[in-house]
């Protein structure tokens, strides 16, 4: 008896588990038709599915904004879903794959090309924004002549620093338009004055931070011509990571396992909020979340500059409508209201950066608390030296992942910088060649 029971059971479980392993995907059913009630009948109740990413402070503002919209348009209610940056970009691909993207979704300059070229976003060129966003800005944001997202704010990349702690340690604060040399010197000097276990700057393993360096010295962006050309400057690459290797040795940057455990905007794991690092990158739209974690302690400066400038300043946050949307017209109407209506602007404030419509920001400005002006300050310090925002092209996500993994190996001392350079350029050139076909 025993024999048959266990053998049978083993085989049964076996076949079930093997069957599950091989499950790839089901078929895809494109072209889901619009729900009824979307045919211009504006009074039929509509429930808009909407998704965005950010920190809690942004979530609260966004939820309130939807309440305001519903109070004005009682037929439209929302089914919101919101999460942090990392989780958001992990979830979106699976939704896209199963054709269940929400009606309205938050897009970012770093990802919009990928999603637009894969046909997941609606063309929004027909939303009339005359007098709200100038034609040139919109033209710049078009991908293949189509507008796949409505920019909702002006954004800029700069740096936040722990003003309170730096002052307490008697360290000279970063100044606007500091050069990369000044940035590295700041780190060296601060090391001597900071207590053990506290670091002036963090280590870096992502491609975008190195790209700021390369671009500021006039060597251009890494991924060019919509992904058909790859451009990684060996000399600058070796120099940039050489300096970081030296810093690792001298404990000017935190050890590798600490760097890997950082998680931005997490009270315990944020490099700055945890008190471990004095500086980190910040954008106009996200600096508010950091300020909330360490109120009154931080200040901002632009990214270090080179002869070409430093950082970027332009709209990178969008609201898009997915091709899976069931209520496309209602979604477009909401987005238009979101960027043009003052009541909307008052509600979400500066949580996405500086509202794109100047009239909204002018109305908003007198009511802003000093801490909310931090975003505006970041924008103002960054704008005159800003370089173009240079995202990856569609199809490059794998390379971006590999870049980080390769540089992590350098950080943990398992690869030399030269090896890393060779690997990264090899895979970069391969993808560029493939995209060129």
């Amino acid at each position, binding site marked *: 008896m025993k024999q048959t029971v266990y053998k049978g059971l083993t085989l049964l479980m076996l076949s079930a588990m093997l069957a599950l392993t091989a499950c*790839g995907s089901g078929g895809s059913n494109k072209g889901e038709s619009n729900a009824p009630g979307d045919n211009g009948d504006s009074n039929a109740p509509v429930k808009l599915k909407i998704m965005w990413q950010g920190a809690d402070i942004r979530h609260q503002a966004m939820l309130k904004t939807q309440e305001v919209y519903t109070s004005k348009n009682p037929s439209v209610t929302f089914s919101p879903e919101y999460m942090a940056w990392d989780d958001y970009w992990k979830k979106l691909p699976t939704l896209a794959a199963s054709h269940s993207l929400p009606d309205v979704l938050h897009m970012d300059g770093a990802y919009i090309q990928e999603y637009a070229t894969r046909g997941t976003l609606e063309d929004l060129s027909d939303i009339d924004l005359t007098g709200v966003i100038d034609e040139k800005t919109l033209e710049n944001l078009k991908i293949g002549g189509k507008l796949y997202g409505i920019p909702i704010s002006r954004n800029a990349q700069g740096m936040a620093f722990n003003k309170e702690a730096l002052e307490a340690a008697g360290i000279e604060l970063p100044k606007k338009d500091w050069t990369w040399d000044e940035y590295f010197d700041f780190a060296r000097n601060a090391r001597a004055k900071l207590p053990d276990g506290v670091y002036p700057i963090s280590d870096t393993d992502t491609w975008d931070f190195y790209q700021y360096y390369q671009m500021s010295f006039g060597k251009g962006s890494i991924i060019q011509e919509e992904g058909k050309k790859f451009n990684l400057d060996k000399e600058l690459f070796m120099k940039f990571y050489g300096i970081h290797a030296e810093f690792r040795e001298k404990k000017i940057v935190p050890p590798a396992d600490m760097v890997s455990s950082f998680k931005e905007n997490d009270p315990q794991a944020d490099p700055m909020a945890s008190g471990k690092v004095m500086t980190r990158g910040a954008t106009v739209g996200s600096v508010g979340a950091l300020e909330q974690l360490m109120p009154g302690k931080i200040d901002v400066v632009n990214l270090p500059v080179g002869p070409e400038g430093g950082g970027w300043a332009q709209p990178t946050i969008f609201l898009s409508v997915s091709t899976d949307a069931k209520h496309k017209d209602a979604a477009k109407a909401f987005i238009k209201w979101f960027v043009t209506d003052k009541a909307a602007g008052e509600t979400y404030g500066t949580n996405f950066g500086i509202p794109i419509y100047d009239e909204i920001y002018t109305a908003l400005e007198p009511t802003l608390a000093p801490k909310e002006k931090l975003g505006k300050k970041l924008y103002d310090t960054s704008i005159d030296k800003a370089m173009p925002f240079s995202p990856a092209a569609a199809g490059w996500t794998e390379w971006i992942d590999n870049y980080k993994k390769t540089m992590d190996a350098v950080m943990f001392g398992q690869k030399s910088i030269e090896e890393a350079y060779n690997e990264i350029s090899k895979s970069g050139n391969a993808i560029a060649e493939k995209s060129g076909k």
Partner: protein
Amino acid sequence: MLLKGDEREMKVEAVHKPAAAKLRLAKKKVKGTNDNNLAGYIFISPWLLGFLLLTAWPIIQSFYLSFTEYSLLEAPTWTGTDNYANIFSSDNDFKTSLKVTFLFVLFSVPLKLFFSLMVAMLLNKSLKGMNLYRTAIYFPSLIGGSIAVSALWRNMFNLNGYFNHVLAWFGIEGVGWITNPHTSLGTLILLNTWQFGSTMVIFLAGLKQIPNELYESASVDGASKVRKFFHITLPMLSPVMFFNLVLGIIGSFQMFTSAFIITQGGPINSTYMYALFLYDKAFKHYQMGYASALAWILLVIVALMTAINFLVSRYWVFYETDGGKQK
């Protein structure tokens, strides 16, 4: 199959009576058995349909897709064996993830078997309130491989995690267990070992089936406890052991949740499990065809491992019905 035939018959009947009558005549010859089968198939039809539509069809589909380039959003294009050729010739991540997964299986399966057997033997003692202990020890397994447990472990073994706090009481400076490439895989193996509940319960059931007379007569002959363990418990338990071993190996090869939640394969691919690699290809890099090919390779690997297991089992698994002889 029969179900389909009968469905067809019904349709035919509606439009074409004479033909249907002929069919029925033909069927009459085997009528007795057929009717019984039909009822049976109807009874299991919910499961059967579920299996055909949700399991069998996707499997066939994925086999087809593994020979295509398919981004999920555009129609697949046939590329022949390109995916397989690329995987074996030039994909470093494939080699890395395979290595990591084999390491994981190699350590986590024996560890888990060992611990669950030890715990099962403890729980097999007759003590007062034993049911309470059993419940308490099995309880964590109810929440077993879930996301929540993984998130808990992430917090425990992070650089600022509870584990390092405890170490600090003893003056030991911990490392970032899950953010250090030397310790991350070990931490995941530990987590997998800790989730021994279901394996342990199966062992416990097996232990209970070993007749007490065997131990009694061995005691009369003066056998020591160790001897009894090696000469009674282990051989009598070997079918259960085999069952747990096979399931453990298959489960470990498919390890995904904790690697995805806790380490995301990092740092530097040190916990880049095969299933995670497959997921990245499918849902992050939009290479569903490539990912399907990976799934089929995993299927072959797991099937091979299991076949080896079954072959080797005849040398160490004893069944009572064979009179205790090796097969």
